[in-house]
């Protein structure tokens, strides 16, 4: 070790050394506070910015992997697959859009459903893949949701849904709209069996998803700053021709207006949900690890 290296304080030294081994592309910038973050730190923090707490969007499978106890999740209704009933075509064919979305996301549609355990409590959970055609709800999303609810009833488990969706899928026409009725109706059965439905609204939850099961939770939780609403902000702005108030349709706005029960940091979600569900099932309080 040269005399120069000896006089550098250890903190700086570590940084200088690590810079050598970090390849490019492993840094990312927080879209909210613009802090430059080491991607691994973001990964280890559930994609929440360690500096400002900004919640980045996450994929369906990652969401469920973070939610369930390790290696307990198994997929439900993954074999239910989309069809292009209307032979819908705009600038692209619906069939081609589906294929592209599948290539990009490795998913076959916008909802992934699994059963597993959370802090040892058996649950069924569904999560939207927003990158799959904007998390839009068509026939497959509706059917997978219902099969998830059915599995919850069969296994006497709570049902949790993490929403992230632009709304109904236009490419399936009225079939998509009817998924609102179908998913909402399924929840009447879950209720009849006195099983909890926890709806978690993540960024963004809009349109037909927001106006159906997502706002029908026994408890409705939102992630901080998530955009949640029926009509999109642009449509509203065009309709009312005035500037929207600060923070309009954000989770905090909804909490203030009494539309949701609570806002929970992603890193606390599973603990909160387990506490709520064990209480609603009149089970002993969980020993949370």
């Amino acid at each position: 070790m040269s005399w120069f290296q000896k006089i550098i304080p250890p903190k700086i030294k570590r940084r200088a050394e690590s810079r050598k081994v970090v390849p490019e592309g492993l840094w990312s910038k927080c879209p909210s506070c613009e802090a430059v973050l080491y991607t691994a730190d973001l990964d280890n923090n559930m994609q929440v910015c360690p500096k400002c707490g900004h919640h980045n969007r996450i994929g369906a499978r990652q969401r469920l992997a973070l939610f369930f106890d390790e290696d307990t999740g198994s997929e439900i209704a993954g074999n239910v697959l989309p069809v292009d009933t209307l032979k819908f075509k705009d600038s692209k064919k619906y069939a081609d859009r589906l294929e592209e979305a599948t290539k990009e996301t490795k998913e076959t549609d916008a909802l992934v459903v699994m059963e597993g355990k959370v802090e040892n409590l058996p649950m069924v959970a569904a999560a939207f893949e927003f990158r799959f055609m904007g998390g839009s709800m068509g026939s497959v999303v509706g059917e997978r949701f219902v099969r998830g609810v059915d599995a919850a009833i069969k296994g006497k488990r709570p049902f949790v849904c993490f929403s992230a969706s632009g709304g109904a899928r236009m490419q399936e026409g009225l079939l998509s709209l009817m998924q609102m009725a179908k998913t909402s109706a399924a929840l009447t059965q879950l209720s009849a069996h006195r099983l909890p439905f926890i709806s978690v609204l993540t960024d963004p939850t809009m349109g037909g998803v927001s106006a159906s099961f997502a706002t029908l939770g026994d408890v409705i939780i939102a992630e901080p700053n998530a955009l949640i609403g029926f009509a999109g902000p642009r449509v509203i702005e065009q309709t009312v021709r005035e500037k929207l108030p600060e923070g309009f349709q954000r989770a905090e706005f909804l909490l203030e207006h009494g539309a949701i029960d609570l806002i929970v940091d992603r890193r606390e979600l599973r603990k909160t949900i387990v506490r709520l569900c064990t209480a609603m099932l009149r089970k002993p309080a969980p020993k949370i690890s």
Partner: protein
Amino acid sequence: MKVTFLDFEQPIAELEAKIEELGTMQGDASVDISEEIARLKKKSLTLTRQIYGKLNAWQVSQVARHPQRPYTLDYIQNLFSGFEELHGDRAFADDPAIVGGIARFEGEPVVVIGHQKGRDTKERQYRNFGMPRPEGYRKAMRLMRLAEKFKLPIFTFIDTPGAYPGIGAEERGQSEAIARNLYVMAELRTPIICTVIGEGGSGGALAIGVGDRVLMLQNSTYSVISPEGCASILWKSADKASIAAEALGITAPRLKSLGLIDAIVNEPLGGAHRDPETMYENLREALEDALREVRERPLNALLNDRYARLMGYGKFKEAKA
């Protein structure tokens, strides 16, 4: 009332104008022109038949939005008796974009609920163009609960561009108001018969559209998004609305073939507004049939049927697991 003609009806409009002109001339004409009038009337009829025989989806949506088309209150006044309109959601306000109350249908007490559009500028504004706010849906739900309590069947009439996209509507929970109705209607312990009489605009329509029978008038539409909205999102231009209308499959025959509605109620030639009396009679018969059918089922069986029908919505394939 003078008929307002749509763009695609202009050839009919021209003929009708000519007929009217001749009609006023007839009084002082030295020659008999009644033959000519009869000939033109026949021609107009044939032309109307031709045009209406092959309406495309976009043209149908023009008819569905026709400013002279009968609205919910017209049907209530002509098909029901003793209507007492009931107001308000008991929490915030009364929403004039949805009307409802207790009435009698063929002597039997029932609850009626429907979107209401306005006839002139002032009333259109008052009715907010038939676009409900949360309190409208909550009023509807309150009336449905009333119907359930007193074992009255429910008739709903759907005619809205959609739920209102406004600041106040969002603040008061537009999403929840719609969602709650879907949930409540799925298990409401009384028969529900829904009819799309004009525009079935998305979630705002569906929020009073879950039931045991769903009927559509021949020239009504029912869609997940307005053709204009869909065009501006997917084609990046609202001008492509006619293409979007076709692609979305919003007409009654198309939706019947998809199994999403039960029956189509025929309209008089040229649309419901051309001959409202015939329209009322056609709908009365259809509603009588629907009520008789749902009445034949014991309530529990009816609710099971309703649930099964809701679960059956959707088209997908299943890969072997």
